[in-house]
């Protein structure tokens, strides 16, 4: 049952991602990206990570993509444009990059486990239903918050400093006269 749903949503995610990069109209692309994010959220739910799923929708689909749309509309980029991938050179680069990523995935799959991702040799083996039990004990948020603010506190804070630097940088770039 879960596997069936997984393949359904995974297929949907891949298809939506493909449509996202192939659509000519930026608005359509953005909407297909939203679709991809939804499918990813569904996969998170299948993995018992409801909090991550709902944050995925809230932050990415609900806030960031709306901002994307906002910018697309403000800049009047709504109409279809010619694609950037032009001529033999462009196509060559595209194939090379795509092939590189595919190869990477392939190698990753080999390294992680010969039998596939579900096997015991996978990177982070968890007994079946382990996440569900943790969630039962700590709630959907505690499950994420606890390791985030205890075990991984320093990386978390470093990330927030990084984001702050990015915000300051954006303000400096956008506003010549402060």
């Amino acid at each position, binding site marked *: 049952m879960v596997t069936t749903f997984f393949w359904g949503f995974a297929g949907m995610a891949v298809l939506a991602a493909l449509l996202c990069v192939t659509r000519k109209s930026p*608005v359509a692309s953005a*909407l297909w990206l939203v679709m991809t994010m939804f499918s990813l959220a569904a996969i998170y739910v299948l993995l018992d990570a*409801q909090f991550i799923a709902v944050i995925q929708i809230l932050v990415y*689909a609900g*806030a960031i993509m709306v901002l994307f*749309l*906002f910018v697309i509309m403000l800049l009047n980029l709504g109409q279809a444009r010619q694609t950037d991938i032009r001529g033999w050179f462009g196509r060559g680069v595209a194939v090379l990059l795509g092939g590189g990523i595919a190869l990477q995935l392939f190698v990753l799959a080999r390294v992680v486990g010969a039998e596939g991702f579900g096997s015991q040799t996978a990177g982070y083996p968890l007994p079946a239903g382990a996440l569900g039990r943790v969630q039962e004990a700590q*709630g*959907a*948020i505690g499950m994420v918050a606890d390791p985030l603010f205890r075990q991984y506190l320093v990386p978390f804070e470093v990330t927030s400093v990084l984001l702050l630097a990015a915000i300051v940088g954006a303000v400096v770039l956008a506003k010549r006269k402060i």
Partner: protein
Amino acid sequence: MSPELKGLLLVASLKVLGLFVALLVGVIMVVWVERRGSALLQDRLGPNRVGPLGLLQNVADGLKNFIKEEVVPHEADKILFQLAPLLSFIPAFLMFAVIPYAAPLPGFDITLPVLGRFVYEGPVAMVVADLPVGFLFIIAFSSLAVYGITLAGWAANSKYALLGGLRASAQMISYELAIGLSLVVVLLLAGNVSLGEVIAFQQRTTWFVFAATIAYMTFHIGAFAETNRLPFDLPEAEAELVAGYHAEYSAMKYAIYPLSEYAALITMSAFIATLFFGGWDIPFTRWDEQVATAWSAEAVVRFALTNLAFLLKTFFFIWVFVWVRWTLPRFRYDQLMFLGWKVLLPLSLVYIVIMATAVLLLERAGVPHTGRYGLWLFLVNVPLVVALVWGLDRRRVLAGTVRRVRVEA
């Protein structure tokens, strides 16, 4: 199929069906409340011809909208233009799924003639989906409602609609922040995002309107913006943008916009009632909190009374939405942004810090989660609210534009 699975399916389908029908009827009723309420506030009578007290007026209007001609502008993006009403309609109805609407009923073990045995263990929670993510689900899906509005504005290829859509997206993102941050306080107090737990905690201590008053204020103001109601109805702003984002829609596709707006209005009212006014909790009694283990008249009465309490609270907030609509004028866009980013956001941030400290101190002191806990939190809130009201009154928090604007010559 096992009897347990059948019982689960029965309960789930009954709840989904019941809630969907109740919400659809509720939307019609709310439109009636809005129209008759507006009339009351304006010394009029309002629609009173179709059906008893004019209750069927909206059915008549719905029928009219069904048989009207649908117009799609020539230069519109056809697919998105058709899609946008759905994108606005679906989240509005999905959001209600996580709100509990009554005390749980006991489980059952019945055998029906043809269908066989149905078994459901334990109390049946009166909520369509008691998700572990609770109110985050509502926030997530209310943030999706903006797609319907924004895309409607863009797809119509009309400048008024586009301006409405732009305003909607900027406004809803801005106020989501204030709403989300005020919910952090609720999370701090209840320790859980599941709405069932939030209600249970309020029953043990006190309603969060007393324990987290400023969070309630921020949330309620944000709710006006999220539902695009006056005084924040800038996406529609019929005086300046014709009708804003749905200016180009006609017939049923137009009707879907008010429909989903009112569905969101009901959900927001129910959400406020649940988060800050104890949901289906009946005040001053512990009787409603007992969980029935077997079917009895008492269990049914408890279900009915708690459901009534929930409906009354929800109705009160719907009425407040209508009431405010005919009292306050529409804000200017810069005032809207000023209020969202420079008042509500810092206010809720400061409030989180204060409340977190209070909660931490109370936990350290070992105060149990009873009425006493609520009383302490209330005592913390009183000076804060007094200070806020004093500041508002003395124009420390909000001030006229004259003070802020310096015209550069």
